[in-house]
């Protein structure tokens, strides 16, 4: 049997020949790619969250006393700043009414 004959036999006996461009096949491939991408992204996010949680678990016992001290020291300043910000915002919102009384801000 020559090579050409064998080639012809193999070509003739091809199991369910696939079409040149099968859209459903391409869609299935792209679906699998999207699924893989989703899994990779989820794995990345889960890993990042786990790493952050571990980092906080290690670091927080050392940071907490310092944060408490800083918080206690900074509380009056924070309260003052918050009051000033609220007053400024109130004045900003009251500008049209104050303009009626001849006060321009």
């Amino acid at each position, binding site marked *: *049997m020559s*090579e050409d004959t*064998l*080639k012809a*036999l*193999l*070509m*003739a*006996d*091809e*199991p*369910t*020949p*696939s*079409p*040149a*461009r*099968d*859209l459903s*096949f*391409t869609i*299935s*491939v*792209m679906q*699998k*790619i999207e699924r*893989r991408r989703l899994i990779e992204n989820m794995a990345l996010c889960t890993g990042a969250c786990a790493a952050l949680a571990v980092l906080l678990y290690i670091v927080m016992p050392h940071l907490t006393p310092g944060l408490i001290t800083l918080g206690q020291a900074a509380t009056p300043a924070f309260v003052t700043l918050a009051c000033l910000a609220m007053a400024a915002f109130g004045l900003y919102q009251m500008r049209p009414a104050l303009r009626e009384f001849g006060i321009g801000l």
Partner: protein
Amino acid sequence: MPTDLPSQADLIQRARQGSDEAFSRLVNDHQQAVRGFVRRLCALPDDADDLAQDAFVTAWANLHKLIDGVSFRTFVCGIAYRKALNDRRRFNRSGARDTEWHGLTPQSHTSTVDSRLTVQAALAQLPIDQRAAVSLCVAGDYSHSEAAEILGLPLGTVKSHIQKGREKLNALLGVSS
């Protein structure tokens, strides 16, 4: 197909940069060749299509490993072949599904029985490396060097596989060479 090369290179470049549209066009362009090759490696068409799809997905993930000068079709066929080998080893380990993989019941090698085999069934009787080499170079239009690239084998080994495969096919089909 030299006229396709610039277009293919452009598509590969865009796919590497993350373009799904470019990659889907590559899949569209090469799916027939890859599916044809894989269908000769595994007898069940559904298994073959799953394997071909997985090969394309792996190719997408490893697109950065595609060397310049190697066609996308060769790259994906190589991945598909290695997946088929792994599947084959897994099926062989489980043993019970071996006949399902071949789509055949075990048959004796007497010429009277073999003469009734279809060409495809005779092809399935060959070892997977010979089957792949014959599928690529005799049934397909791949060069020997392309087949060597796909199968990850030396050129001489591929030629030897083709020769042995052709002889076995002739014997199985009961046709004199």
